[in-house]
């Protein structure tokens, strides 16, 4: 492989990292409030601290619909939004928009699941001491659920690595794009293999770091 190809691989890796990094931030910014809402608005008998059954079931449906949407289709549907926000529909920056929106409902679900695991007795104790709902959420539930939240976020990031590779199919940039344009369309199997290996290593690394952080938090408890 020539030096030019290696440079291309390096740039693509950076693009992937960039896409994953920003879409992680945005998907969590969207998913965290949604996940919290899903958890706290549950009906009272299921442990919701601010029961709003109608809102809860509406949010639940929205999340389900978004999650079952094939990512490629979602990206195409969101082209107008990308154009509105970034001015274009191709390239790394433009891809962050559909990536964030596709991962947000996933993040919301894992965050909801983590928060639901918090012992109801502990929440009851916090309530009995006169905590406001806001205090229960931010000073109790999120902190108590932290190891599980970290695992959930790790899972979200790994999903985003996968999505970002898929985005290459419609001009998204990054390693997926490289693998398709060089590896598939120009039948450069070597480039394809390198791109795939880098993605595998990225996923392993993210999982490793996520596990470490989660274990670190648990070890102090």
């Amino acid at each position: 492989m020539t030096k030019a190809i290696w440079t291309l691989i390096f740039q693509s890796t950076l693009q992937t990292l960039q896409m994953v990094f920003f879409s992680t931030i945005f998907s969590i910014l969207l998913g965290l409030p949604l996940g919290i809402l899903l958890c706290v608005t549950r009906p009272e008998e299921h442990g919701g601290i601010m029961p709003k059954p109608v809102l809860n079931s509406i949010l639940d449906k929205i999340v389900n619909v978004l999650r079952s949407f094939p990512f490629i289709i979602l990206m195409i549907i969101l082209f107008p939004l990308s154009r509105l926000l970034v001015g274009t529909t191709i390239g790394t920056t433009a891809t962050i928009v559909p990536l964030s929106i596709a991962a947000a409902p996933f993040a919301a679900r894992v965050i909801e699941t983590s928060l639901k695991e918090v012992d109801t007795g502990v929440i009851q104790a916090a309530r009995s001491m006169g905590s406001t709902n806001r205090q229960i959420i931010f000073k109790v539930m999120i902190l108590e659920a932290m190891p599980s939240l970290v695992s959930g976020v790790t899972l979200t990031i790994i999903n985003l690595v996968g999505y970002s590779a898929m985005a290459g199919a419609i001009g998204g940039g990054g390693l997926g794009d490289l693998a398709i344009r060089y590896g598939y369309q120009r039948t450069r199997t070597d480039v394809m293999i390198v791109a795939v290996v880098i993605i595998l290593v990225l996923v392993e690394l993210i999982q490793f770091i996520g596990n470490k952080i989660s274990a670190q938090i648990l070890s102090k408890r």
Partner: protein
Amino acid sequence: MQIRLDNLERSYGKVHAVDGISLFVPQNRIFGIIGRSGAGKSTLVRLMSLLETPDSGQVLYDDRRVDNLTKQDLIAQRRKIGMIFQNFNLFSSRTAGQNIAYPMEICGYQKSQIETRVQELLNLVGLEDRNDAPISTLSGGQKQRVAIARALACKPEVLFCDEATSALDPQTTKSILELIKDIQKKMNLTVVMITHQMEVVRDACDFVAVLDNGRIVEEGTVKELFAHPKTDVSKDFLSHLTTVDADRSSMVFWSNVPGRYTLRFAGATADSPVISELARQYGVVFNIRGGGIQHVGGDDFGTLICDISGDPQAVKVSIEKLKENNIVVEEANA
């Protein structure tokens, strides 16, 4: 603070968990509420501590109605209530000291103020050096001590204990009860203890209410209940007491083998020769192993520890007769 409940009702579907309860809890006393599981204890304490609202009826703190407070007032009122639980319910994300700090944080205390008070409270519950201990490193008894300190952080006027000793072994239970009694005196607290253990009522409470099927079936001083239990539920609770381990210092033992039965005599029962009569009538043998005066609910009881042997049927009948004569019979668990 005194608490009055006026005809409280709370149902879940078709189950009347609390079915018309009226109760007066005097201030600066330890009030026990005993009942079997499913009797409605937990619901009752949740209604009293404003964690739930009744379907009908009233809860009054010092003659002020508190069951219909607005959200804001409710939160303010809960900050003046302390509560501890069977499973401790401590925050695993916080150390012992940080757990105790939590109620003060949410009430907006100054940081320096919190630090001083946390140390003060750790001293109070005997955990001076465990400020930085993660919760998972504490024993059950220590966890409940942290929970007590946390409940008392904002100087409440009332402490609710929801089966606070049920997850603890007998020795630890005793030390936690001593702590609660001690704190009750020091802080002039009103304490409400929900339990299914008669030992807890015997060792800690001044007053007791017996709960069955969502109603109060018997109520009075602990001494009265022990001396003259009126209902079957109460008698049943008394017969399942674990034996007298409590205060061996007030007892004289002339045998190292612990007796199976503990008999308690109160008031007029001491006048007739019940034991001799039973021995003659049913041919059972009383082997008396120890005896003395014991303190129950602030009063003295004559106590005899003995074995009763003979024909099993006769033993059974004799025990019934003893109970009929207002003698409390506690049987050790084998």
